[in-house]
């Protein structure tokens, strides 16, 4: 599914942020990614959702070598990945519905093809009543769930979440974790970057720990 082999990353002429990182995410697995601030968690996720190319090493996604793939072929790969950004990155001028439908519209689907699907998903994450609201009027938790809905609406094979509970209270954090576990049960491979120890304690999922640019696995 996802394979890193001796991946190294440095920004500009700086030191290596990631050094010889190798790991494997099996189909349908669930992992946490943790480590101190500045360890390179976000950088690693950026490599995974193709916002960044590695300085060296091999990254294989869904059986494709993405480290040196030409620009024009990236969108196809990206459509298999759902990302929950730490800062949500919702589009303020689109309603919750349109935000969530974005990955489908980008694929050229017409609204009548996905309307029921999207409404159903929003109901499922508890946003059924906020369908026509715009992000600026949503509370933190609602934004977070919108971002999660957008990440899963395209039925991605891989879901990446960067500190998805950074802005919500512990109770809501637990609810969001349940959401991810449900998705995982439906077959999605999941990787969650977080420094929230309380969250990780609640799940028995294995952890990857980044420290000083090197990665160790904690089962």
């Amino acid at each position, binding site marked *: 599914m996802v394979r890193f082999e001796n991946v190294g990353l440095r920004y500009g002429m700086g030191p290596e942020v990631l050094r010889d990182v190798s790991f494997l995410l099996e189909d349908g697995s669930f992992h946490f990614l943790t480590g101190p601030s500045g360890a390179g968690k976000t950088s690693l996720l950026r490599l995974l*959702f*193709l*916002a*960044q*190319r590695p300085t060296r090493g091999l990254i294989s996604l869904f059986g494709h070598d993405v480290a040196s793939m030409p*620009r*024009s072929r*990236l*969108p*196809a790969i*990206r*459509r298999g990945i759902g*990302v929950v950004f730490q800062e949500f*990155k919702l*589009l*303020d*001028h*689109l*309603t919750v*519905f*349109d935000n969530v439908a*974005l*990955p489908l*519209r*980008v*694929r050229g689907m*017409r*609204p009548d093809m996905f309307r029921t699907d999207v409404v159903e998903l929003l109901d499922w994450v508890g946003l059924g*009543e*906020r369908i*026509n*609201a*715009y992000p*600026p*009027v*949503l509370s933190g938790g609602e934004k977070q769930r919108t971002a999660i809905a*957008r990440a899963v609406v*395209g039925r991605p094979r891989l879901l990446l979440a960067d500190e998805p509970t950074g802005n919500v209270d512990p109770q809501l954090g637990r609810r969001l974790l349940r959401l991810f576990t449900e998705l995982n049960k439906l077959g999605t491979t999941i990787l969650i970057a977080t420094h929230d120890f309380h969250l990780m304690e609640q799940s028995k999922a294995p952890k990857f720990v980044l420290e000083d640019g090197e990665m160790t696995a904690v089962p």
Partner: protein
Amino acid sequence: MTVNSQDKKRAGALAGNLAMRLPQLQWRRRNVAIMPDVGAAGKPLMVVISVMSFLACLALGGLVIINRSVNDWTRDMASQVTVQIKPEAKADSAKKVATALRILRATPGVTNAVALSREDSLKLLEPWLGAGALLQELPVPLLINVTISKRRPPDLATLSAELTRAVPGARLDDHNRWQKQILRATGAFRIFGYGVLLLVSAATIAIVVFATRAAMSSNRDVVEVLHFVGARDNFIAVQVQRHFLSVALKAGVIGGFAGFLTFAALRGLLASPRDADGGVSAGQLLLGAAQFGIADYSLFLFVPLATALISVVTARLAVLRILGHVL
């Protein structure tokens, strides 16, 4: 609890409508605009592109008039030369004219030679000396209009010499001097016209590049998100293009229509009140034979299309260029 959450729902919907004024009625439409309008810049952009289209119309119209006039004049001039014969009381002018005509008609390359009547000759002088009894008594020179072949013109120098020898007082005028001057003057105007067209096109392109970059820059986060959800460059370019197409088409139509009105008004202003004494008005001198016909006004239809095309292509290229720098 139920009341509260219903309250909240209503509140959210209403607040939403108030907070974001623009896209409120769009969600039921088939496809909501993914790129918000180019930085609230719609109107000024439209004004600028309208002005550009209008200037393009002026330049185009001017070029049409110049080209037409120059064509008319030079066509006439190139194929026409004039022979003047000094009027002398003692000599038999009719005979002189006949001799000249014979020589002219025998020259290969001369397709026609007609002696003007005294009345016609006088008419030629009228604009300069005024009509009146005065002219009637002038011993005007005898004039022969000579039409020469454009393809195989005669050697005018030889012909001139021959005429002067055979008919004393005859002089061949090939209008050469006037021709050169008109060409020089109109050439300058023509360069000027093309220059304005070029400038206007360049300025339009620059404006659209500018607006596109501004749009991309103020929609940077939108573009980023679109990329991350798997949008292809083409998808993003189409979102931007669409906006510029509509603005440019509207602006082009406004500019083209303004251009049409200007030429219609200019023509009315210059040409309409025919002088009472039947002279050529200054307007007619200007517009000359170059009257604007329906075919010419259709040029102004071409302007919006060209504007839209330039804008869309420019916007697309600008977007793709920006995207090329992103992973």
